[in-house]
């Protein structure tokens, strides 16, 4: 799949300074589980995202340590307080160390 790692992020269209905004994000990723033999032993490691970091204006505001219990094409929504006009960056890291990054700007209207 060529689109693995494609990230969508959504912030409200109009934000006022000091608002608490909900940010939604979606990344295309199969979150593949390790295959298991008939005794239930894992073969290989699978391929899934295990770290998500959210930065707002350079500071880490949230970090998620997730596992295989997250659905394919992981979706996360969280809230931050829009105190300044700055970009919100999300960095996803999979278990093989590959990173996927995306950012949206928080702008005041």
């Amino acid at each position, binding site marked *: 799949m060529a689109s693995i790692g494609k990230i969508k992020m959504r912030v409200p269209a109009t934000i006022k300074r000091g608002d*608490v905004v*909900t940010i*939604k994000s979606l990344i295309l990723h199969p979150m593949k*589980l390790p*295959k*298991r033999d008939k005794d239930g032993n894992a073969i290989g490691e699978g391929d899934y995202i295990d770290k998500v970091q*959210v930065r*707002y204006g350079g*500071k*880490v*505001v*949230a*970090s*998620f*340590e*997730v*596992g*295989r*219990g*997250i*659905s*394919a094409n*992981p*979706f*996360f*929504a*969280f*809230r*931050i*307080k829009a*105190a300044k006009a700055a970009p919100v960056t999300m960095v996803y890291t999979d278990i093989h160390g590959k990173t996927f990054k995306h950012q949206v700007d928080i702008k005041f209207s």
Partner: protein
Amino acid sequence: MKRVFGDKGKDIDRRTFVRRLTAGSALLAAGSLVARRGVAWAKAEPPVSKELAAELKRLFGNRPIADGKAILGLETPQIAENGRVVPITVEVKKPTPIKSLYVFGEKNPVPLVGKFHFGAAAESAYLATNIRLAKSSRVRVVAELKNGNLIEIANQVKVTIGGCGG
């Protein structure tokens, strides 16, 4: 149906019939309600699985976990048709500084779904995500407050098709 006035006997008969019918159905409904409640009660506190108990011990040691229903809100579907994608939402009802949220699918092969840490700029701990559930089980969320206390909330979710196969 044409009503026959004056034919008292018949009228009363019909009335008693209707009355009995309503009374009967009300009883029946009450009965089934009690039965359903009974099931819900029985399911409310099943023993915690070995894996989950081990996981909780590994993460929190012997720290007590208090009931967090007053502070936390957990939204889950009652019935998840597909265990592969179960939307959950965790919300903090009372403004409480929360450091981390730990989400568990109680009967998953790996019960810990994720740890979600929130920094100062994150306004309260709000989280919505999709998780996998292997079987019908409770989704449990343990929140670690800034002062180190632990609180939890859990919801039963019925899963029609498991999500952790293979």
